[in-house]
């Protein structure tokens, strides 16, 4: 059992942070890696990136958006409750090389995934411009953390309630125009990553994205997480989750993410009704 020792709500309760006791994983985890969690006996195995780790304390931190039944069950766990199963660290760690000027772009809960990578890129000596965005001010997460992890931070909101009024890609374009950027890391909803990649392609700047296909085992044995990268089939759980964004078939990924839409809704509605009753 993996005990929750801290719980915090963010983004008006739509996003939850849990710090969990998992000493073996905490000791091994590197930026970019993820864990698979299962809350109960009947639960699903859900992949989530480690937003932070504390090897000394033996804990890992996850930050997730509540989107369906499984993440709703996670949300309803309290401090002192436990996840039944936590497996990891999984996936290939990010290559944290010193390349010069770097831009980190994050949208939604993608910012949680982006944060340890941003910090790592700055730590090895890069000049890091970060651009994070959300629909409105209330939904923004990890602003302070991203500020200290980066050399400079830009914030965007779709409705203009805070920071730049518009999309992260607006600031991205400005920065690409002005500076000699060596690497872009873009993590967020699939349409955002696709937009970022389309833009950086024009400027011929290498771009890393972190893909989030549906997974089961996370160890390369089911092939459910397969994605097309440069015309080849890759397993995101072992070959990724990070890939060269210019080679990723985002349209296929979007379609594959919808595989269980009907079942997920059935399951979520039932859970919500049960909670209300």
């Amino acid at each position, binding site marked *: 059992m993996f005990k929750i020792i801290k719980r915090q709500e963010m983004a008006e309760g739509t996003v939850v942070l849990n710090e969990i006791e998992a000493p073996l994983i905490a000791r091994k985890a590197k930026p970019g890696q993820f864990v698979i969690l299962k809350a109960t006996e009947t639960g*699903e195995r859900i992949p989530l990136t480690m937003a932070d780790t504390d090897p000394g304390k033996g804990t890992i931190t996850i930050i997730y958006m509540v989107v369906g039944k499984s993440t709703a069950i996670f949300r309803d766990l309290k401090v002192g409750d436990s996840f039944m199963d936590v*497996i990891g*660290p*999984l996936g290939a760690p990010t290559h944290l090389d010193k390349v010069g000027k770097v831009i980190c772009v994050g949208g939604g809960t993608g910012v949680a995934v982006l944060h340890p990578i941003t910090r790592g890129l700055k730590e090895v000596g890069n000049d890091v411009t970060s651009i994070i965005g959300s629909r409105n001010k209330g939904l923004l997460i990890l602003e302070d953390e991203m500020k200290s992890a980066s050399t400079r931070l830009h914030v965007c909101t779709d409705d203009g309630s805070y920071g730049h009024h518009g999309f992260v890609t607006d600031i991205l374009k400005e920065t690409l125009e002005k500076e000699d950027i060596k690497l872009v890391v873009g993590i967020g909803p699939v349409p955002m990553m696709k937009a970022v990649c389309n833009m950086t392609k024009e400027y011929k700047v290498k771009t890393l994205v972190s893909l989030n296909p549906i997974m089961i085992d996370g160890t390369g044995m089911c*092939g459910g997480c397969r994605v097309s990268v440069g015309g080849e*089939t890759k397993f995101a759980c072992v070959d990724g989750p990070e890939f060269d964004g210019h080679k990723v078939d985002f349209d296929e990924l979007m*379609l594959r993410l919808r595989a269980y839409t009907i079942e997920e809704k059935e*399951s979520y509605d039932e859970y919500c009704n049960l909670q209300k009753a």
Partner: protein
Amino acid sequence: MTDKKVKKEKVARQPMPEQEPAVRAKNFEEVPLGQSLETAILEASRCIQCKKPGCVEGCPVGVDIPGFIKFIQEGKISNAISKIWEKNSLPAVCGRVCPQEMQCEGKCIVGKKGDPVAIGNLERFAADYERKNKTAAKPKKAAATGKKVAVVGSGPSGLTVASDLILKGHEVTVFEAFHKPGGVLVYGIPEFRLPKDIVFAEVAGLEALGARVECNAVIGRTLTLDELFEKGYDAIYLGVGAGLPTFLNIPGENFTGVFSANEYLTRSNLMKAYLFPEYDTPIIKGKNVITLGAGNVAMDSARTALRLGAETSRIVYRRSRAEVPARGAEVHHAEEEGVEFFFLTSPVKFSGDENGRLSGMTGLKMELGEPDASGRRRPVPIEGSEFDLECDLAIIAVGAGPNPLLTKSTEGLELNKWGYIVADEENGKTTKKGVWAGGDIVTGSATVILAMGAGRQAADSMHQYLTLGW
């Protein structure tokens, strides 16, 4: 006297009672219902107690078949199970899943002129009887040696090593990547063929003997082999199976609705998607289902699809009926339940709709050509014979390979050109000191009993090492 003998030969092979095909094709309960003590004794009476029994030669672990059958003849079931345990620690599993017609029963003398003695059914009977009545004396545990053993993977191979070595007095920990132990027995083989309670009872028995089972431990990630040695383990057994799915590499394979058998069966068995929404993991319930391949994995997939509500469940296989590698009983059961077979048919491509969902498959007819190196006649395509089959779910069950996750992160472990671990055939020793391997990760996908046999050999060798040295 003579009268009795004549009568004895006349006893026909006792049929195994089964759920009706039409009923069972809609539920996940076990298909064969098990035998009564009376019919088991009757069946046992068909064995003529050969002096040089062919059946034993046919069993990869050399179970003393006449020996245990004699005890059943005499109604001494506890003695029968103790006899089986001498060579086989998972008889409830093997009685159900061994390809008996190619092994023990295939070599039974009675089978030369009729049906062979139902050795598998009798083995299963003895094991089930013991699980219910618990009458046999459990094997004794030797005095503690103070040595620590790590077993990686909790499939039949790993479980055999763990059980052998704990009985020899060593401290044993089994590390399993999944959240439940059992390997293929739990994630692959469906409930209707092997109830999971049987596997969990075996694991519980192992734990009762003092073995520790650590799930959620992906060796190579959570801990490496070298770290296990640093933690004080004296010897390590690798029984990680051949869990890498093979795809066909044909167009359209990434449409939603095309699964590897590993994913499809793991969702249904391990994650219990067949009980959705009581269990949270969803599965696509196809209306028209195609399974590619014709081994046990394919039969399990096609029959699972029927139970999840498919209107048609079809098996498409490149070769002819004669080459079907699945157990005879599985093919027979699948046909009875309504699975259709398309032999000498090769998949060419999948097609999908505008939402990226699978809508059909194009197949190509084959004919048998000249014999190849193995003496089998090679299927060759018939030009212009393409045809379309409607399907909204396709399950690819054309084999599996070695997962590189562990082997790549381990130095000093020699692999062959396909990525399987190189291990001594006699004793399972790998090229890395203190590390043994066996089962599917050495041989490629094989059988439960072969994986167990490899485990037994390695356990003997590990015991020698732990008491005498490498």
